[in-house]
């Protein structure tokens, strides 16, 4: 999604067994008609605004020559590498740090409790506005970061957006800043549902600190962690705002990701079909992840 969600999906992970739907009784007559009428608006939205646009996209990108154009385009290859960097590094670092930080925020200290709302603030901020602040902050020697570097340490900071790697790094940092709090909250909420007596038992057996995390917390959260990571990969693949507004794809298109390159092809270079082909070339990665996710959703249960 263009903005990662306020609240993540529903990975049923901990403690309770898989939920079974109440036994179906067959609906009859007017009841059935009512039920269908209730579900109709959603079905209409799904068909008209998901199936149709998606089919339209496939139809637009049906010509094989488009893909030949893509592969011969110098920008496309660097875009693939950038996307892998952004998604691979961004999602994994984000998830891992979020998992660790959720443990930190669980510590019973008043100042840690007070810190939590401040830490969550970036997530509550509108994405575009936050990304623009990052853009100005890293704009070079006029930006706050380089200004602080020279004021505090006397170093001349780099021109962040003049180098592809620094540019991609800036995008990733902005992305981490914006989205890490949300996943920390998810893991924090999950950790709070782990029954206290499991830790007590582990303590009796002599497990402390890191071993407790490795042998108790992590196995319990592993399923949730996997689902969150996969979902986050999908959303990050589609993250347009961060790259578009932080580095803007520059210099000379060297920090584009698939979502922004597709946008530029479609709306700046007047080649909409090529733009669609660009984003659809991620489907071979997208589809397996979606399949795994859907299976996990239905079979996940607790591993206590």
């Amino acid at each position, binding site marked *: *999604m*263009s903005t990662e*969600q*306020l609240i993540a*999906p*529903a*990975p049923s*992970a901990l403690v309770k067994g898989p939920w079974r739907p*109440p036994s*179906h009784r067959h*609906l009859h007559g007017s009841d*059935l008609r*009512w039920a*269908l009428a*209730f*579900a109709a*608006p*959603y079905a209409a*939205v*799904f068909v008209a*605004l*998901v199936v149709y646009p*998606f089919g339209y*996209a496939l139809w637009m990108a049906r010509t094989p020559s488009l893909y030949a154009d893509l592969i011969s385009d110098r920008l496309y290859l660097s875009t693939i590498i950038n996307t892998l960097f952004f998604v691979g590094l961004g999602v994994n670092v984000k998830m891992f740090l979020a998992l660790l930080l959720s443990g*930190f925020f669980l510590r019973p200290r008043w*100042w*840690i409790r007070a810190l939590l709302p*401040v830490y969550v*603030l*970036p997530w509550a901020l*509108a994405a*575009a506005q*936050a990304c623009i*602040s990052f853009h100005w*902050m890293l704009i070079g020697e*006029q930006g*706050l*970061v*380089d200004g602080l570097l020279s004021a505090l340490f006397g170093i001349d900071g780099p021109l962040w957006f003049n180098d592809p790697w620094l540019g991609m790094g800036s995008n990733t940092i902005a992305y981490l*800043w914006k989205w890490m709090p949300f996943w920390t*909250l*998810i893991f*924090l*909420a*999950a950790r*709070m549902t782990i029954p206290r007596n499991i830790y007590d038992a582990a303590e009796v057996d002599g497990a402390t600190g890191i071993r407790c995390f490795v042998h108790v917390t992590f196995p319990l959260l592993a399923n949730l962690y996997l689902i969150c990571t996969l979902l986050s990969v999908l959303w990050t*693949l*589609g993250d*347009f*705002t961060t790259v578009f507004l932080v580095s803007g794809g520059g210099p000379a298109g060297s920090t584009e990701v698939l979502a922004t390159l*597709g*946008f530029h092809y*479609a709306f700046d270079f007047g080649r*909409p079909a090529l733009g*669609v082909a660009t984003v659809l070339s991620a489907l071979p990665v*997208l589809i397996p*992840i979606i399949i795994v996710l*859907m299976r996990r*959703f239905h079979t*996940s249960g607790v591993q206590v």
Partner: protein
Amino acid sequence: MSLAVDVAKPMRLARGRHRRRVLTEIGSAALGLILLIWSLLPIYNMLLIALDPEEGEIEFAGNLWTPAPSLDGFVDVITQKARYLEDFWQQFGNSLFIGLLTMVLTVLIGSLASFAVSRMRLSKGSLLTNTALLTYAIPASFLIVPYYRIMHAYGLYDNLWAVIAAQVTFATPFAILILQLYARLISLELDDSARVDGASPVQVYLRIYLPLMVPALVVVAIYALLLAWNDYLYQAVLLSPHNMTVSMTQGQLFADVDAEWNAMMAAAIIYTLPPIALLFAFRRYVAASLTMLSSGA
């Protein structure tokens, strides 16, 4: 001798534990400080630019605080004097219109559909849940070009309803998922006994389902509103400069680097305040739903 060892060992152990505890405290204080700076630096940067008296000034002059902070930026926004923000309140109104209608429609469509599936036990209801899941997993930005074409074809280009339609589409899947999870907590016997007493499905929906689902509906409403509020891409593509939203004005970043950035940042700050207030006001509901989601109810 053996006595001395017996006494010394626990003492050494206790001292080791004490030292470890002190180190942990110092470590977490350092981490807390890092997190504080990390979280606040970009926000501080926004304030710094917004409070700068000089228009278009984004420079950091080495002062940790603007020497003469001024509210000119904010005043320019509120009185609509800044370039690109001449119609700020109309832009704000457009954003609000999109947000509120996305919210209402998402709550309505989502609650009706999940009522049919989870309360009326519509057979093949899992199909509907699966389509929701599928939509949830598709990155919205990937569909922007077809949306642009389709909205043009329907004559909805540059119409706020085009953006609302897109936002509702991407918000309802979450609504259905969380409403289904929450509905499990409410006994189905309530519905059944109401039906025995002669209530129609519509009455059950209005009198039993909606009132009992309020906490989940609040979360869905906030979610939908924030999704629309956070959107940049769909508004920038589906609307023209005649129908600007606040989100879109920020796109001037590329068109005009010399815009009055103190006013632009002031507008950004004004724009981000409502969601923060909303999340703060309903933090209990949000926290409860996070717990529910992470544990699968």
